Structures are given as C-alpha cells and as structure tokens.
C-alpha cells in the first residue's frame, strides 16, 4: 500500500470533520470516494495529499509519514487536483501546464527535453493543445478544468488524487477524462483516487469505492458490493432501483422520484 491514512483525526480550527478515519488507497487501481455534501471527502483527500495536517493519527506515503517527507519530493510521487482552484490572471494554457514540471526542475536552469515532452503529452491527452496560447482566465469552465488536469498529468506522478475532476465538464468530456484516467491506470499502472458525485460514473470506472458519511468510512468495496439500495437509503436518503449496465455488467443506480410534497398554498 503506497498511500494510506491510519486513524486520522481531521479538523479545521475547532470544527472536527473526522475523528478516526482510516483509508487504504489500493495500489494500481482506480478508487472513488463518494458521500453526501459535507461528508468530508475533500478533507480526507487533502489529508492524503499533505494539504491538511491531521490532528491525530498519520498518513503514510511509501511507508513514511507524509508530514515528514520534503514536500517537493512528495510532489514528484503524488499529484493533487484540489476542488477549489484560483485561476491566475494573464497566463497562457501552455505556461500553466509548465507549472506541472515545477517539482522536477531546479530553481534555475533550462527545462529538460523530458519536461517538454511531458508538457506536450499532458496538453495532448487533455485535448488542450489547441488552446495553448489562450489565457486561462478566458476559457470556459470545462476547458479550464481540463487545463488543470493537464497540470497534474505533467507532474508525472504514480499517484493521482482528484477532487471532483468532472465538475464543469460536459458528459462527453467527463467520459473522455475518465477514459483517460482508466487508460493511465491500465497502461501505466497509475494509482488514481478521486471524488465523484455521479454514482453511475463511479460504478463504471471504479475498481474500489469508499463511502463516506459524516467523516466516517461507512463501507467500501467493489461497485457491486457498495452501490446497493441499502447504502443509498442510509447514506444518501435516496430510494433507488439498482439495475445492470448491459454492456459492462456493472451496477446501474436509478434514483426514484420522491412522493410529491404538498406545496404551501
């Protein structure tokens, strides 16, 4: 296990998000965190990526406590796409993607051929090469999201943590992104852990699903084990039918509309 959280307590100042959370990110697999808004998914991901120091317990990366490793060293092994991002002004797509090479470069000196290669690859993979000379703050939400993903890819890490990478993307690009991640996983053995809200995308692409509710790991397992009527009702207060995707054989979650509420007169 390259990355895991062992009994971490996660808090912001006084607000406690999780008391005793343990997560083991399976190597060379695609895992997905699901859970209601505010359940602590982003917080958990942040602690796995050393963006948030646990108040108790520890996060281990390759056997060492992540807080004890030099942050630049971590950045060569693990890339994180945070949920909330600041878009810098007046910077072109290509220049932004170059920042992905930052952890691999010295303070001064020209970039290496490998730096160039990775940047080009990241631009191509996210279909942002044609946007390279445009300013990032003038792109659409979805285009911008793809550029941020390109930054993470250019980092060339074995571990990729992504917090809701599909937000802002139209369905086509959602699928293309998830296909790309699946390919990176399949062909290069990259370990991917991401937060998704769409059950069916999770079912289709995840090898392993973690379900979080109120800062606790409620259950985990394969999509078939986890995406059940029971989970949906207790964790998400949803009535669902579970079907089967005719192509992949994976579960298909069909939310049912609730009984009509009477509107105030």
């Amino acid at each position, binding site marked *: 296990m390259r990355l895991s959280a062992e009994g971490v307590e996660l808090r912001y100042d006084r607000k406690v998000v999780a008391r005793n959370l343990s997560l083991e990110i399976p190597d060379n697999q695609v895992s997905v965190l699901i859970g209601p808004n505010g359940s602590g998914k982003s917080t958990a991901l942040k602690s796995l990526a050393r*963006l948030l120091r646990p108040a108790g317990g520890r996060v281990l990366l390759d056997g060492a406590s992540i807080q004890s490793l030099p942050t*630049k060293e971590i950045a060569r092994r693990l890339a994180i796409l*945070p949920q909330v*991002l600041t878009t810098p002004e007046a*910077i072109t797509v*290509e220049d932004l993607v170059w920042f992905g090479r930052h952890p691999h470069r010295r303070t001064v000196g020209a970039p290496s051929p490998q730096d160039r290669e990775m940047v080009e690859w990241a631009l191509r993979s996210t279909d942002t090469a044609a946007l390279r000379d445009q300013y990032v703050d003038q792109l659409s939400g979805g285009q911008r999201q793809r550029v941020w993903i390109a930054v993470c890819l250019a980092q060339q890490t074995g571990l990729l943590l992504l917090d809701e990478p599909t937000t802002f993307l139209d369905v086509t*690009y959602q699928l293309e992104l998830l296909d790309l991640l699946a390919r990176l996983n399949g062909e290069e053995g990259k370990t991917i852990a991401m937060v998704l809200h769409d059950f069916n995308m999770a079912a289709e692409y995840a090898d392993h699903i973690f379900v979080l509710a109120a800062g606790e790991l409620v259950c985990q397992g394969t999509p078939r084990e986890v995406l059940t009527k029971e989970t949906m009702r207790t964790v998400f207060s949803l009535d669902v039918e579970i079907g089967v995707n005719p192509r992949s054989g994976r579960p298909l979650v069909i939310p049912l509309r609730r009984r009509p509420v009477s509107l105030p007169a």
Partner: protein
Amino acid sequence: MTAIAPSPSPASTAASHRTARGRWYLAAAGLAVVVTAYSLTVASVPLPFGDVVDALTGRADDALSRLIWDYQIPRIILCWAVGAGLGASGAVLQSVIRNPLASPDVLGVTRGAGVTALFVVLILPATPLSLLPVAALAGGVTVTVVVYTLAYRGGTTPIRLALVGVAASACCEAVIRFLLMRYPQNVNGSLIWLAGSFFGRTWQTVAITVPWVVVCLPVVVFLGRRLDVMGLGDPMAVGLGERAEGTRRLAIAVAVVLASGAVAAAGTLSFVSLIAPHIARRLIGGRMAALTPMAAAVGVLLTLGADTLGRGISPPLEIPAGLITAVIGAPYFLYLLMRTGR
C-alpha cells in the same frame, strides 16, 4: 482525448515572448545608461559633459574631481540601489499578497522605518548620522515581523497580511505625527528625510546600502518561478511542491529587507515600489522570473529620473526626489485604482 487541431509550434511562441522581453530589457538598460550619464552633469551648477568625462578619466582639476567622485557618483549609485530595491521589493510583495496595489507600505515597512529613524533624529540627536539607516532598517523589519505575527493563525492569508499591515502603518503614522509635534527643534531635517531625498548622501551610505541590494536582488529574482507557483493558491502550490508558508515567509523577508534598506538610505520615496512593478508588468507580463528584474530596472529609472529632475529644476535649490515621485505617482495610483476598482 487526442489532439486534433494543429497548433502553432510551442517553441516559436515561447521564443517570440523571449525576444520581446529581451528587447525591453535592452531598452531599459540603454535608457538607464543615458539617464545616468545625463544625471552626472546635473549639479548646483550645470557641468558640461566633457568636464564630467575629464573627471572620470582623472584629467580634471581637484575641485571638479571631488564634486564628481564625492557627490555625484555616490548619489547616483545610491539611486540605482534604492530604485532597484524598491522596484523588486514591490514586485515580490504584490505577488505574495496577491494584490496589485500592495507595496512595502502595505506591510508597514516604510512607516516603521520612518518611526525609528525619526526617533533617532529627534530624541537622540547626538547619534551619528551613519546609524540612521540602521535604525530605519530595524524599524521596518520590526514592524513587518509584528504584522506577520499578528496575521499568523497557523498560516497567513494575503488578505489578513494586508489588513494588519495597513493598521500597523496607520499606528506608525500616528507616532510619526506625535514625534514631529513633540520635538519641533529638529523637524526640518526630518521632513526632508521623510519626503525622500538623496541630498548629501556620501560613499558611507552607499557602503551600507549597496550590499543589501546586491545580496537580496538575486534571491528575489531566483524566487521567480516559485512565486509564480504560489500565485496558483496555497493548495495547488503545496501540491506542486512548495512549502507555501515557508516560501511566503522567505519572499516577504527578503522583500522587506530590500525595502527597509532603501527607505533607510533615502527616506520614503512614495509610489516607486508600487508603480515600478506595474509599468514592468505592462511591458513584459506578469511572470515573476522576468518581472522582478524589470521592476528593479524601472525602479532605477524612476528614482534616478526623479532625483535628477529634483536637482535640475531650479538649481541651486533641490526638490526632494520623493516629492517628485509623489507628484508623478499619485495620479498614476489613482488611475490604477480606477482601473482595478471597476
């Protein structure tokens, strides 16, 4: 996701940016040489350029040599050091505080330096003048440390730094006013210092100031890419391998030392550290590795230009350089405010 549309070759666009930048650097350097040469000829009596060349090559009489070597040259060197320090420091602070209207004033550096310098001048008039810069430096650094500490809650945010800095500046300003009213005997000299002036600066001030700049300037230039990464916000910056708070602290520290050193040497030259980065950004864009040196160059031009103008307008009377930068800077600042305020 595979690329479909053909795109311009990356090398060509990056290269064209680089040549454009190169041209601006050359232009700035050329201009600096011209202004420096001209500045050498501006004294209480105008000096013909030929005489200046004679003095520089050791073929002039004693009085002229003394004038050039003991007054003109140290003064110009000081303008260079102070201008470069202020310009670079402003660029770094604007980047770290993520506010284009930030400057060493926002962190309290200028006013803090002013307080301790005035304190020395007014209350301890027996202190040798050479200690004035040291006092100012101590004041600038102290106020910044206080500001940083007050803004620190397990980390700082740009907005908290700016707010605490503005409050601290206001407090220091109050102390300055109080000192001026309470000790009116020495006020004249203090006012000139507060206005920012290179009057009567000698090699001694040069010797105290230049090392600061020579050491700190390369540091902030080399911080360039790291500061650009910091501009992506703390989470992303940490993700890309920056210790966000550590980098911020380092950048602020070096910028403050630069600015305090400048203020110590020449008093408050208003607006230079605010405006130089803006002009530089207009010329070559916002990437810090390229911007910081350019902001330093523009700072030199502004400072040297203001001092030369101040000496040349109505000799033998001197107008403090800080007054001139204020006259030029205030409208520019208002213009900036209106543009960013929209």
